[in-house]
């Protein structure tokens, strides 16, 4: 990891064009037409777009699963299919393409071995990842028995097994329940804090709004908008004031003040609503306190090496002291879950 240029862009797409051809080499679909995009180190970039706009194609090109018709792709300073680039990439595909006959633990060991991780280190990361995605209780079940959401959680664990510098996520929240969704956003934020770069595609705008620093909107194989989320979403012609409950008298006086100072501006007064997401999360949290549990995925615990505690670059073996305590804490949470079943 340390032999990387630390300031260069993580993903660089220049004039990227992908035209799918049929058997006779006749152009059939132009999926991407001259896409220029740069993903900087440590940022979370969301690729938005309607179905069929070329999001997945872009991701597959970055991963070397497809080859560009024209244009240049550099990933972490390497061509996309270079082994050194792949060493630092984690990829969560749109659907989970996991080996159906392996159990979660076997699959993670298999992928860990492809990164030449030692058995001790693999074991440690797998424990941590299973806790993160809440699959500790299902670790010994074959993946073919998993629900779609559980398989996606395992897909995420698989993508994180090498503690990647660059995480590429194709529709990451598809198939996740709202709890998983929230956990997922927390995970992204914590990975971002550790300086990891995340490239994700989605058409669920709420996810992108919460998680991404920057977005690019893809339509018809071209990027039609790009920029910081906060800049793009800020409305410069309106002001919102939020405070405690006000009496009718106060409201009337505020309205008069606005008319007096700013002229005839439209003023809307409303009671803020809780989001459905917030409501759902609260309901689940209450149920959990009563020690109810489901048979599938448990609640994820953002701990272990993904919180940056165990696998700081260069100090992979430094896992004594406070970390030990943290792990014990994690275990007790899991124990609670298991007992609750």
């Amino acid at each position, binding site marked *: 990891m340390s032999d990387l240029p630390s300031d260069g862009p993580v993903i660089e797409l220049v004039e990227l064009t992908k035209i*799918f051809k*049929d*058997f006779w080499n006749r152009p059939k679909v132009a999926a991407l037409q001259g896409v220029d995009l740069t993903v900087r180190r440590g940022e979370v970039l969301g690729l938005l777009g309607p179905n069929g706009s070329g999001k997945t194609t872009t991701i*597959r090109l970055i*991963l*070397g*699963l*497809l*080859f560009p018709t024209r244009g240049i792709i550099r990933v972490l300073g390497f061509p996309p299919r270079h*082994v*050194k680039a*792949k*060493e630092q*990439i984690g*990829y969560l*595909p749109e*659907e989970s*393409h*996991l*080996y*159906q006959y392996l159990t979660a633990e076997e699959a993670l060991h298999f*992928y860990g071995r*492809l*990164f030449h991780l030692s058995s001790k280190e693999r074991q440690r990361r797998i424990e941590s990842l299973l806790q993160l995605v809440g699959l500790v209780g299902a670790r010994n079940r074959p993946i073919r028995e998993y629900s779609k959401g559980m398989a996606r959680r395992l*897909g995420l664990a*698989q993508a994180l097994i090498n503690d990647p510098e660059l995480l590429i996520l194709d529709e990451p929240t598809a198939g996740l329940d709202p709890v998983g969704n929230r956990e997922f956003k927390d995970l992204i934020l914590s990975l971002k804090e550790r300086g990891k770069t995340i490239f994700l595609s989605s058409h669920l705008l709420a996810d992108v709004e919460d998680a991404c620093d920057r977005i690019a909107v893809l339509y018809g194989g071209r990027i039609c908008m790009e920029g910081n989320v906060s800049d793009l979403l800020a409305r410069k012609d309106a002001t919102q004031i939020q405070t405690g409950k006000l009496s009718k008298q106060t409201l009337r006086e505020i309205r008069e003040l606005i008319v007096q100072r700013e002229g005839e501006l439209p003023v809307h007064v409303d009671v803020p609503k809780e989001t459905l997401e917030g409501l759902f999360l609260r309901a689940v949290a209450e149920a959990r306190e009563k020690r109810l549990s489901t048979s599938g995925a448990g609640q994820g615990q953002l701990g272990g090496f993904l919180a940056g505690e165990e696998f700081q670059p260069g100090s992979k073996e430094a896992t004594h002291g406070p970390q030990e305590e943290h792990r014990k804490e994690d275990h007790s949470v899991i124990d609670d879950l298991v007992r609750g079943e």
Partner: protein
Amino acid sequence: MLVFVLLLPALPLLVKGDGTQKGLVQLILTYTFLLAHLLILLLTCVLATSTVCGEIERKEVHITDTKPLRRWEFLFGKWLGVMILDAFLLLLIGSVSYGVTLYAARRGDPAKLGQQEAFKEVLVSRRATPAEAVLAKDKIHEAAVQELDAMRQRGEIAPKLEEETLLASLEAKYEKWARNIPPGAMAKWVAKGLRPARDETDSIYVRYLYQSSEGEPFGEQDTIHGLWRIGSPETALYQMPVDATPGTAHEFEVPAQAISEDGTLELQFIHESPILAIFQEKDVQILQGRGPFYLNEAKALLLLLCQAAFLAAFAVAVSTYLTFPVAALVMFVVLVACLAGEGVADLIETSALVQPFPFPGRSRYVVDRGLRIFLRMIVTLLPKFGSYTPVDLLITGREIPSALLVQGVAFIACLRGGAVAVVGCLIYRFRELARVIA
């Protein structure tokens, strides 16, 4: 496959053979080996294609390929997996069939005679040395020259024909004639490079095979009588009167003292029946030594593994581009072509490939030539499994030459297998994995 392995121990109870222990053991060995051969090769084709195609089709490869793994490493891993399974199955079949043949050889034989025969003539590994026919080369040459002269005088030699080629073919004709032994005549052979007798009990086997001029069918009275004289007056001379049916190989045992100090053995056959006895090249062999049978069986199975290695490499290569049903079908064609081997080659040489109907006149000739060259190329490139499946050597207790094994490893597994593997890796290297091939 497992059913087959489980059924193996029941074989001695199921098959009858010709009533002798030797026959039973030979029959069991033949069944086991040929079935194992076919099953292993089929399994290899299906397994290798399905594992690669399936992984690409189910898109599992999308995750695996984004791990730091080179594409050829992925293919090599697939090949290795199939090979490990094959090796394990062959080991299982080999050890079970070895146990079954030992059991069959010992079973139900209180007199131990049949058992002895089976152990001496089947369950051993004896080195075979062909005996060279002693032919009067000068007489053959003389006769050929005389006929050539006669032809020249009669003006029968076409102007384009070279005389040397003609002479060679005439000599070949007379040599063939010289191998035919008329009634009452004597034929001679010499075998060289044998090991002289170690002690008085040391013995060798003479294995011979001849055809008769009468052709089929043969009744009981159609056996050929004769007298074999083995050795020379300087060493020790043994006589063996025989009364044997033509067309099948026969063996008899002789003390090894007939072999001279320098490892030479002389053989004579005095023919006593009223028909021609025809010995072809290598129809007389001396079998010597008593190597362990399991070593011979292991060699035969290793040769089988070489064939499986080639097929697995081919199947993996084919699967990098084709989808499962197509790839499996291609592999079956390849398998049949490899098994048919020589037969297909002969067929291509001897038959008309193109019918006159769609290709009139000269175009037919051109198409025929093109097709012939193409087919010949394929047949040459594909290994001929027939020459590397030495069941006949195995069941007659003859040693499988190590040279054959080396050839098998070199030509089938390494050279041809390697070539298809390289092609497969190249195709895979430049394949867009995420793209569905229409």
